[in-house]
C-alpha cells in the first residue's frame, strides 16, 4: 500500500504557501525537496562531528571520516557496485561526466576516434564530449531520436563502429521522460569494444539501479535529484578502469607522497577526490539513500506512474495541449506545449496558483530543435506528489486557457 500522506509528512517545505496558495511542487526533475532525515543528519554533522576527514588523529576527525566513508558504502549498496572504492564523490552528475571526459578521455582518445551520444542528452552529457573531441580530434556522433522521443530503432547499431570508444547515454531523458534500452546499448557497445557511460541523473530517484547487472563502465548521478543535498554527486566506475585513469585534479587527499621531484598518487577512490570534499553533503546523500531504500523504489515508481497516467489522461482531454515525449514506459515527466500560449506565460500563471513547473529548453536545446520548439512546459512528479495536485495542475492550465481565450 502506498501511504503518500506519510511520505509527504517527511518533507517540511511541502507545508509552505506560495502566493497564498499551497505549494504544488512539480519541478522535481530540476531538483527534489529534502526529507527531515537528510536535514537532520547534515545538522547533526555540523553540531557534533564537524572536522576535516582522512587526516586528524582526534576523535571528531575519526567520527567525521567514518560518517563520510559510511555514506560511500551506502551509495555502493544503492547502486549494487562490487567495491566501495568504485564510488567517487563529485559535485554532481556534471562534474562526474567532466571527470571521465578529462581523465579517461584525454589519456585514451585519439584523433579519428568516435564518441557516441544521443540527441536527447542534457547539455552536461554533450558539452564535455565536444570539448574532448575538440582537444583530441575525435568525432562526436549523435544517435537520433524519433517523433515519440525514443532512439531511432537500429540507429545505435549503425552508428557503432570500430572507432567508437565510448557511448555516453542518459538512462532517462529530463526533457522527454524517455527511458532508454540500456541493456541493448551496452551489449552493442561491448561487441564493438566501446565503453559506456550512463547518465543516471534522472533515473536514480525513480527506478532501482544495479550497475553490476547493467554492466556499464561508468554511472553518474546528482544527490539533489535523489532527495539529497546539492553540491554532491557520484561517479561510479569499474575498478580496473578507474585504476588506469590518471588523476584529473591535483591537491590534498589525492596524493600518497609529494616531493618537488615526484609525486605519487593515492589509491582509489581518493585519487579522484582532491581537496576537502563536501563532507556534510556526502553524509546527507547517505541519508537520502537510506530514505529512498526504506520507502522502496518499486513503490515510488508505481506511485509516480499512477500520477503520470492520470496526468496523461487529463492532457488528452485538454484541447490544444500536446505532449512532447510520448514513449511507452516513460518516467514521470510530462513535457508539453499549449497551442497559442508560450511556455513562459504558462509558468507565470501556474506560479500564481502555487504550482511550480519548469519552462524552457531544459538544458536540452537539441531536443527543442528536433521538435522545432523554443521551449516546453514540464511537470515532473516525485514520491510526495498526489492525485489532488495533478488536479490542481490541470485546473491551473484551464485558467491559462481562459486568460488567453483559447
Amino acid at each position, binding site marked *: 500500500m502506498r501511504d503518500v500522506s506519510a511520505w509527504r509528512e517527511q518533507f517540511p517545505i511541502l507545508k509552505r504557501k506560495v502566493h497564498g496558495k499551497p505549494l504544488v511542487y512539480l519541478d522535481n526533475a530540476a531538483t527534489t525537496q529534502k526529507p527531515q532525515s537528510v536535514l537532520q543528519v547534515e545538522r547533526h554533522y555540523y553540531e557534533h562531528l564537524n572536522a576535516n576527514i582522512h587526516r586528524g588523529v582526534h576523535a571528531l576527525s575519526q567520527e567525521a571520516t567514518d560518517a563520510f566513508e559510511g555514506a560511500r558504502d551506502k551509495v555502493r549498496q544503492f547502486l549494487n557496485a562490487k567495491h566501495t572504492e568504485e564510488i567517487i564523490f563529485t559535485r554532481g552528475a556534471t562534474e562526474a561526466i567532466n571527470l571521465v571526459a578529462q581523465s579517461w578521455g584525454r589519456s585514451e582518445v585519439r584523433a579519428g576516434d568516435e564518441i557516441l551520444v544521443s540527441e536527447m542528452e542534457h547539455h552536461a552529457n554533450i558539452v564535455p564530449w565536444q570539448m574532448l573531441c575538440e582537444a583530441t580530434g575525435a568525432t562526436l556522433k549523435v544517435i537520433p531520436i524519433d517523433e515519440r522521443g525514443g532512439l531511432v530503432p537500429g540507429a545505435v547499431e549503425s552508428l557503432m563502429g570500430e572507432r567508437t570508444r565510448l557511448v555516453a547515454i542518459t538512462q532517462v531523458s529530463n526533457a522527454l521522460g524517455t527511458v532508454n534500452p540500456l541493456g541493448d546499448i551496452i551489449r552493442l557497445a561491448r561487441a564493438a569494444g566501446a565503453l559506456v557511460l550512463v547518465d543516471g541523473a534522472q533515473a536514480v530517484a525513480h527506478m532501482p539501479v544495479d550497475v553490476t547487472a547493467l554492466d556499464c563502465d561508468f554511472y553518474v548521478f546528482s544527490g539533489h535529484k535523489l532527495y539529497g543535498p546539492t553540491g554532491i554527486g557520484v561517479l561510479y566506475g569499474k575498478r580496473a578502469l578507474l585504476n588506469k585513469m590518471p588523476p584529473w585534479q591535483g591537491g590534498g587527499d589525492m596524493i600518497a607522497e609529494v616531493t618537488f621531484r615526484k609525486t605519487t598518487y593515492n589509491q582509489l577512490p581518493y585519487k579522484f577526490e582532491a581537496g576537502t570534499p563536501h563532507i556534510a553533503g556526502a553524509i546527507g546523500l547517505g541519508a537520502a539513500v537510506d530514505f529512498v531504500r526504506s520507502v522502496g523504489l518499486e513503490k515510488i515508481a508505481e506511485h509516480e506512474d499512477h500520477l503520470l497516467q492520470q496526468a496523461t489522461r487529463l492532457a488528452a482531454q485538454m484541447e490544444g495541449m500536446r505532449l512532447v515525449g510520448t514513449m511507452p514506459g516513460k518516467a514521470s515527466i510530462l513535457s508539453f506545449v499549449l497551442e497559442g500560449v508560450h511556455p*513562459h*506565460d504558462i509558468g507565470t500563471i501556474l506560479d500564481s496558483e502555487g504550482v511550480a513547473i519548469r519552462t*524552457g529548453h531544459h538544458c536540452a536545446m537539441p531536443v527543442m530543435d528536433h521538435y522545432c520548439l*523554443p521551449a516546453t512546459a514540464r511537470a515532473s512528479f516525485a514520491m510526495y506528489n498526489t492525485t489532488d495536485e495533478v488536479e490542481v495542475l490541470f485546473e491551473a492550465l484551464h485558467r491559462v486557457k481562459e*486568460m488567453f481565450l483559447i
Partner: protein
Amino acid sequence: MSDLRDLYQEVIFDHNRHPRNFGALANANRHAQGFNRLCGDRLTLHLKVQDGIIQDVRFEGSGCAISTASASLMTEALKGKTEAEANALFEGFHHMVTEGGETSVNLGKLAVLAGVSEFPARVKCATLAWHTMNAALHDHQDPVSTE
C-alpha cells in the same frame, strides 16, 4: 505577488494576438537580433533610420505574450522618433520595468507593461525588444542576449 491581471492586461493580450508592425521591412537600414537564453525566444528587428529619425520599424520572431506585446508596442512608440528620443524611451522603459514607480519620460501606452516590475522573472521578456533596438541603433553586429 501582485495580481496576475496587473501583468496580463487586455492591451497585452491584444498585441500578443495581433502584433503590430510584424514582418520584414523592405529598405530597412538597421537590423539586430535578440535572444533570450532563458526561454529561447528570438527576435529580429528592422529599422529604417533617415536623418536621425526612425521612419519605420518592424519585427519578426516568436516569443511569450510579454515579449511579443512589448515588441509590438515598442514599434508603435518608435515611429517618427529621433534616435535621441528612442534612447530616452529605452531608459525610461527600462526604469519602469526594473525599478517600478515614476519615470521622468512620458511612456504613453508603454505604461501597460508597468506590472512587469512586480514579476522579476519576466523583466527579460519585456526588455528583449528594447535591448535589440538599442543594438540596432548602435550598429552592434552580434546578437544581443538579455543575460
